[in-house]
């Protein structure tokens, strides 16, 4: 690493070093279009499902910030649905109060907690002068039927208060099984409110999609407006000599594909965002020590980064787990 480079902030303060950034992905693009359409047409909910580690929670964090940027007045909340032995109304409303940033999240009757929640949501919405309230429910496959009923009551309470609640249920594929079960049982009050729309969340499935994601590292600046893209920040001399991460998409895709085939993993390659970003972050943090105007990534380097991402280990771990269940 060239210590004479005068970066606008130190490396340890950069969002990439701190892992405090989110890059858009094709699935996030699809999710954003779905959310925009729901907001436009007042479709009050959607079920978004995908495999573990594919980037769903990542997408929620991205969308919360994206919505805050594009609709600064709209209230956006997020909860993480925990798996519990038995559903508890107090625990459910406490979690929602926590999401709504209320100072008191427990210590009252169920009715009081529910009233407290609707008053708080209403106050924020009225103060912001936007009647739309968005709630992201992560790990929604953990929600039980009774919890959907409580959520429906909140939805109806807010509707009576002239507010519109949009619930985006994000979870693993069991979420769709839940939807089918509700439909089979005639639980239209749940499906019609929260599960009308569906979206399958997936990882990166082509070199072109990799290129689109990598271009974000070339384009984004930190600090904003400083002309210091992420690529320039970590590889300033190579960047000055014309290196761009977007051009590495084919090599990175090929490295993941090689690892996938060599490990004899089943199915077509679909890179979860977790491993994709880990590989890119490793490339920056390791590559910065070799930065020079002649520095170039090569296939061997990308193969090492894929190993460092633990993609194969994680996929094998998942496969062993599945085979032990199905045996």
């Amino acid at each position, binding site marked *: 690493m060239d210590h004479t480079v005068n970066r606008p902030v130190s490396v340890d303060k950069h*969002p990439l070093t701190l892992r405090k950034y989110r890059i858009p992905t094709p699935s996030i693009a699809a999710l954003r279009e779905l959310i925009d359409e729901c907001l436009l047409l007042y479709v009050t909910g959607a079920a978004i499902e995908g495999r573990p580690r594919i980037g769903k929670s990542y997408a929620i964090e*991205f969308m919360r910030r994206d919505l805050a940027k594009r609709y600064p007045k709209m209230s956006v909340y997020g909860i993480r649905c925990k798996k519990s032995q038995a559903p508890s109304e107090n625990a459910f409303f406490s979690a929602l109060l926590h999401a709504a940033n209320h100072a008191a999240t427990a*210590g009252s009757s169920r009715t*009081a907690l529910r009233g407290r929640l609707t008053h708080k949501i209403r106050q924020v919405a009225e103060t912001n002068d936007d009647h739309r309230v968005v709630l992201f429910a992560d790990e929604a496959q953990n929600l039980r039927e009774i919890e959907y009923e409580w959520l429906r009551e909140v939805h109806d*309470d807010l509707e009576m208060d002239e507010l519109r609640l949009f619930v985006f249920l994000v979870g693993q594929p069991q979420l769709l099984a839940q939807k089918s079960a509700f439909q089979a049982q005639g639980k239209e009050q749940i499906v019609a409110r929260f599960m009308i729309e569906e979206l399958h969340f997936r990882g990166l499935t082509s070199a072109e999609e990799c290129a689109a994601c990598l271009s974000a590292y070339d384009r984004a600046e930190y600090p904003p407006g400083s002309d210091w893209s992420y690529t320039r920040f970590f590889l300033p001399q190579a960047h000055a000599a014309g290196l761009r991460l977007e051009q590495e998409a084919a090599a990175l895709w090929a490295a993941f594909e090689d690892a996938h085939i060599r490990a004899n993993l089943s199915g077509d390659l679909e890179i979860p965002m977790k491993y994709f970003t880990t590989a890119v972050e490793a490339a920056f943090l390791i590559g910065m020590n070799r930065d020079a105007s002649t520095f170039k990534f090569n296939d061997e380097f990308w193969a090492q980064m894929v190993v460092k991402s633990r993609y194969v280990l994680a996929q094998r771990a998942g496969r062993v787990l599945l085979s032990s269940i199905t045996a």
Partner: protein
Amino acid sequence: MGAALLRDPSFWQPLTLDLPKVARSYCARPEWTTPGESAWMLLSKFSWCNRLTITQLARLVAKLPDEATTHGVDLRRADRLNVGALVVALGSPATSSQGAFCVEQRHHLLWLAATELRYCPECLRTGFHSPIFQWRFFVRCPIHRMRMRTGCPRCGASVPYRLGAQLADCPLRCPYCHAVWVPCLQPHAGRCSPLNPQQADAFAQWADYLTHAIGPAGHRLSAALDRSTGRLSAACRRAHQYQTEKRFTYVSTLTTHKQPLH
């Protein structure tokens, strides 16, 4: 889906997770209150929105929380509450708590202020209550000209002027007959409207007048009050009986001259 966005360069921008953290707060509705509103009404509205238990509410605003859970905190006196915490919880400017109490601290004339809620029925219906209503010598509402009342408007049950379980559990409603005292809050999306500036100004003038009339704590010889009857002195009654406009003019001069009413 997402095809248009995939071609849009502006979409491909990372977002940093550096949004400012939103501080946890209570549901506060400063826009529902009028300056000079009583601590009883401020806390009742706060309770209406937040539904805290008396223990939680007392821990938040009372100087001696145990007092609230036993016989209640006297809301006539400012020194029984943690006013700083109250202001933060209510989300109001610090000045809003001024005039929310009958007296700042222990006062030799506090016995003249009722320990039971006294109210103007019309003011209460709109969600307003002034601490000046608590003074027993204050007979009529300066805005509506209605006589002060006590007890639940429907069943007559006594309403303590204290921060206690009743205020926390049944804010702005009767715990016995369940009558809602502020009907505008009852329906969904219900809200209170503050008094108009002229009305608020009239109450502010009266509050100044009464502060002046009562005098500082320990000053036992206030000529504004007749100690034997506990009523306003003859001079003050004259001011009280004048035409409304003249009285307000008279009261407003008190705030400018700051002379004792002796």
